[in-house]
């Protein structure tokens, strides 16, 4: 797993967002109504229970809900890049960059989670999450 060793050395954008192997995001799940969130929260945003949600791993598989190709951004970020809202299979929507040729991106595209440096310009690398088109083996 040399890939994991390589990315393990990069500091994460924030603690507690994801695990490396197998790659997946950490969320929380309400013990009363079942609502899942990303990132994990200390309360349920959907119901008024006082019970603390449980932490959970989230499916790395999902679909593109909407997307754009960003061609102009404030300084420090190289353009263009694809940004998307991804609907994970377990009912959680995540915003992240999408590693896919812009002309082939469409609403409904099946994607999977990838972990990589998400600082796009020279500087200190930071490990974050993005998505790429799902291959047959992953779906």
């Amino acid at each position, binding site marked *: 797993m040399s890939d994991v060793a390589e990315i393990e050395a990069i500091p994460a*954008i*924030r603690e507690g967002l994801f695990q490396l192997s197998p790659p997946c995001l950490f969320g929380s799940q309400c013990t009363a109504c079942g*609502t*899942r*969130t990303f*990132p994990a*929260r200390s309360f349920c*945003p*959907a119901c008024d229970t006082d019970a603390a949600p449980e932490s959970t791993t989230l499916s790395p598989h999902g679909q593109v*809900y*909407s*997307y*754009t*190709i*960003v*061609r*102009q*951004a*404030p*300084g420090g*970020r190289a353009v263009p*890049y694809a*940004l*998307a*809202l991804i*609907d994970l299979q377990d*009912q959680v*929507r995540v*915003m*992240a*960059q999408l590693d896919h040729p*812009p002309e082939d991106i469409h*609403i409904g595209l099946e994607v999977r989670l990838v972990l990589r440096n*998400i600082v*796009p310009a020279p500087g200190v690398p*930071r490990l*974050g999450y*993005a998505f790429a088109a799902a291959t047959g083996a992953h779906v």
Partner: protein
Amino acid sequence: MTHEIASIAGVGMVRFGKFGAEVSFEKLGCGAARAALQDAGARRKDIEAVFVGHVFGGPVAGQRIAIELGLGGLPVSNHENYCASGATALREAWLAIRAGLYDVVLVIGAEKMTDRVKGGVAPDPSDLDAQQGFVMTAGHAMSARRYMQDHGATREQIAMVAVKNHAHSVHNPYAQYQSAITLEQVLSARSVADPLGVLDCSPISDGAAAAVVCSAEGLKRLGIASPRPVVRGIGLVSGSLRSGLGDVNEEDISRRAGEQAWALAGVEPSDIDFVEMHDCFTIAEIVRMEGLGLIPRGQGARWTQDGLTSLGGKLPVNPSGGLLSRGHPVGATGMAQVCELYWQLTGQAGQRQVPDARLALAYCKGGTVSGTDGASVTTVVMAR
């Protein structure tokens, strides 16, 4: 408990635009404030407090303006709610008047952006979405793409919001842009975030707008005998965390801000004669009008194409030219909307006048917080 009624005694603006270093933040704010004081017939000694909305003005920006106006020593407060900052400052002034604390106050929205903002505005760098490369344009681009998918709207219909608002501001001497643009120009403009091009985006602008707000006693003190437009109510809500896979264009935050405003003002939304809407991007005007319930869900693009939101239409939206064409110095925008409401409700809007305008809404939406449907929305209802 009875509440004092807050009226707008006078307003003032500087023309929005892109200014050099010789036009400072303080100079912009003072220019608008002096115009408002003159319009209201107020002298410095009449003013009891100063409320200032801004985002990029830096620490105690309001005090820096007030001291240049000769208003040192007064209570001065600074209000930041991103693009809703100006309207948030007005809300604080309105609350203070209603509470009976003051009779004559000055509200200023001011922003100098062109020397400190490049390439567009974004959330705070600590925000999780910002770390993914989220910029405001990207959010609205994803909103537009989904709106077209869900409602069968066309790219052309969305672009028509820019054509309409530029046509309106041909008649607004305070607008940054005062010339019409064509649909072809919007469609062929440089892409900023697909499918939105640069003419779908409000510009980075400098400017300021101000108003003198009075109780009934304050109007008397200024020698104003005739009625002035009344602030009927100002809603303020923040976004809520969205769970599940709902419609990105649901605009629940707009629905809540609208319902709060209608209740505070004691009006029916169907009685609104025109709207100054926060069209920071073309698609935003459409989905926010729908979120408020002023246009049926999914029909905003069609309404735009059919001219229903144009001057002379069923419900004119942005007779001033809106953010797209009047310009968008973020902290000043809310007060610029209030200036437009004042001019329209007093019949001073010239060739962009909405005939017999009696009741109007000004809507601002400021900022984003990851996971929510927005950060802040203000809804100002004013009546003749």
